[in-house]
């Protein structure tokens, strides 16, 4: 456990190993520690000591409380943790969701956050779960749960990705008037909580927490593509879905196509490379070098055992890693810049110590929050204006900002772009 407190140094030294381990699956006993660490929830918890406690002790806004209470007994009603009304599962869920509406009063509660929070609570204490939910909502899927519904944009992206990666399925969907918004809204917004077998879901979340923030919805889109392929990939499957309803029914029953076979599923997810207009990050030479410097395979997967305090076994014969790891996932995205960034900045940034970087990031986050508030105000005005048709599509082109390699920044920019994209799409 001491190793975990030294996570920072591990993170820098072994981010590659961490990613590979996340791909292999985080041991169940470590998820409670690892998920908050990976998504930055632990950091935020440290920075905001006692905040959750104080939110928790205050009453929430009644209108949100009503909606949340309505949802408590319908998240995983058959899971033992959520069986009884006053059991710690439902109570915890209420407290976490209520605290979020106090933490983000303008945003409030989105019903898709319910199952996400429930799965977090199955894996960790309430305070950690709360900060993970905050990180997911703010950093990983910004705008997903707010009334902006960036999901509209991602549904359009999914359509584009499907066209590139499984054209036959995409054509089938188009022919029958099936749009991703009709089947993937639940998948993406609930992070597959309601459509994957539990063990597979946990493995997908391992990947999501590890890769999700720097390339946003990439992991989610990859999973969605695999699911569509599982349901509609073969010609005879498509033949069995001769219309819109049949196709949608099939997609809704996607769980039948994912049996308890996490390994193959995760392998499939990581092998299907997805590159999307906003997510595409070029592979630099640097990344190639890093890949060659990897330690040999026997050391590579031992990180979590070390963290658990186990001694590495010595005379174990070397095994080939079961699956081929695609380049895009090996890459350490946190250090890679978006394509349109000036190269000069890279050097300067690279020299910064990780602490300094973190400090800057925090500062940036603070700034962003303020900007966000301003932006929200502006958007509200624009929302009003949008009703006039002639202003459509022109909104959200605020002043161009200085580009930095802070992933959070990139994310917020994507959000911004995405809104106008989604606008023009519908």
């Amino acid at each position, binding site marked *: 456990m001491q190793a975990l407190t030294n996570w920072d140094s591990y993170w820098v030294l072994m981010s590659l190993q961490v990613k590979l381990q996340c791909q292999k699956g985080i041991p169940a006993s470590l998820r409670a520690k690892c998920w908050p660490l990976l998504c930055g929830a632990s950091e935020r918890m440290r920075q905001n000591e006692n905040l959750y406690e104080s939110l928790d002790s205050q009453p929430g806004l009644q209108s949100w409380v009503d*909606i949340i209470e*309505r*949802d408590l*007994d*319908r*998240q995983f*009603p058959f899971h033992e943790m959520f069986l009884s009304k006053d059991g710690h599962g439902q109570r915890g869920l209420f407290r976490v969701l209520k605290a979020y509406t106090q933490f983000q009063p303008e945003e409030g509660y*989105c*019903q*898709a956050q*319910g*199952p996400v929070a429930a799965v977090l609570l199955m894996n960790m204490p309430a305070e950690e779960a709360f900060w993970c939910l905050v990180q997911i909502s703010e950093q990983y899927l910004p705008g997903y*749960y*707010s*009334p902006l*519904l960036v*999901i*509209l944009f991602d549904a359009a992206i999914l359509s584009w990705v499907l066209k590139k990666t499984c054209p036959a399925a995409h054509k089938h969907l188009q022919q029958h*008037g099936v*749009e991703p*918004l*009709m*089947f993937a*809204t*639940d998948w993406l*917004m*609930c992070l597959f909580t*309601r459509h994957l077998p539990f063990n597979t879901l946990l493995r997908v979340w391992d990947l999501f927490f590890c890769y999700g923030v720097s390339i946003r919805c990439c992991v989610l889109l990859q999973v969605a593509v695999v699911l569509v392929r599982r349901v509609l990939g073969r010609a005879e499957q498509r033949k069995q879905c001769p219309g*819109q*309803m049949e196709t*949608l*029914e099939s997609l*809704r029953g996607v769980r039948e196509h994912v049996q308890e076979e996490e390994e193959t599923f995760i392998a499939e997810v990581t092998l299907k490379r997805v590159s999307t207009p906003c997510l595409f990050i070029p592979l630099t030479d640097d990344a190639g070098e890093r890949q060659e410097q990897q330690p040999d395979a026997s050391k590579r997967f031992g990180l979590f055992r070390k963290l658990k305090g186990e001694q590495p076994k010595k005379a174990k014969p070397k095994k080939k890693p079961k699956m081929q790891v695609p380049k895009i996932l090996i890459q350490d995205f946190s250090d890679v810049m978006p394509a349109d960034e000036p190269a000069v900045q890279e050097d300067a940034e690279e020299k910064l110590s990780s602490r300094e970087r973190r400090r800057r990031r925090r500062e940036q986050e603070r700034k962003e929050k303020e900007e966000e508030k301003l932006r929200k105000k502006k958007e509200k005005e624009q929302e009003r204006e949008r009703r006039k048709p002639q202003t459509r599509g022109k909104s959200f082109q605020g002043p161009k900002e200085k580009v930095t390699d802070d992933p959070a920044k990139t994310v917020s920019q994507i959000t911004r772009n995405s809104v106008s994209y989604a606008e023009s799409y*519908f």
Partner: protein
Amino acid sequence: QMGGQNLRKEHLYKVLVIGDLGVGKTSIIRRYVHQTFSSNYRATIGVDFALKVLNWDSETVRLQLWDIAGQERFGNMTRVYYREAMGAFIVFDVTRPTTFEAVIKWKEDLDSKVMLANGQRIATVLLANKCDQGRELSNNGIKMDQFCKDHGFVGWFETSAKDNLNISDAANFLVKHIMATENDILKSVVPDTISPQMDSSRQMSCSGCFK
């Protein structure tokens, strides 16, 4: 259509079920299609679907029920879900007045985003759900009739998904209206000029008419 006398004429209708969150849209659909009831159906995120097949005299009616998320913030995506609908239920919860106030908002949203091929509004029935829970509307019946008239509903029903009250009656009532409007549309099309260049995106979902 090819085939002999025993080939039944088929209608396919897309029907929306909308209304505020927690009013019982999913419960109504489950009751109608699967004859079951549970108090903890999970919240609908985005949209869900069910299909109900009805024997209608000598014809078959396939009802596609689109169960649409009730939380306000999903309103941005309803345009995609409403497309090509022929009829709708707007549901409210008789025990929560705010859900009734929202009915007008839902109706406006519906009428602004979808219409029939002839430009008319789609047939919409108002459902006062959870009527098993005490509050009776029956003495307000005249008021409700007036409300429906004022706001363009073809009718209203007190329903209970729990006790299976009035749900299939309401559905039959809606189907009747959809069929009537469908006939109006067909009549308005001059015979022998069924235009081959009809814009596919505006095509109706009625397979019986255009197959």
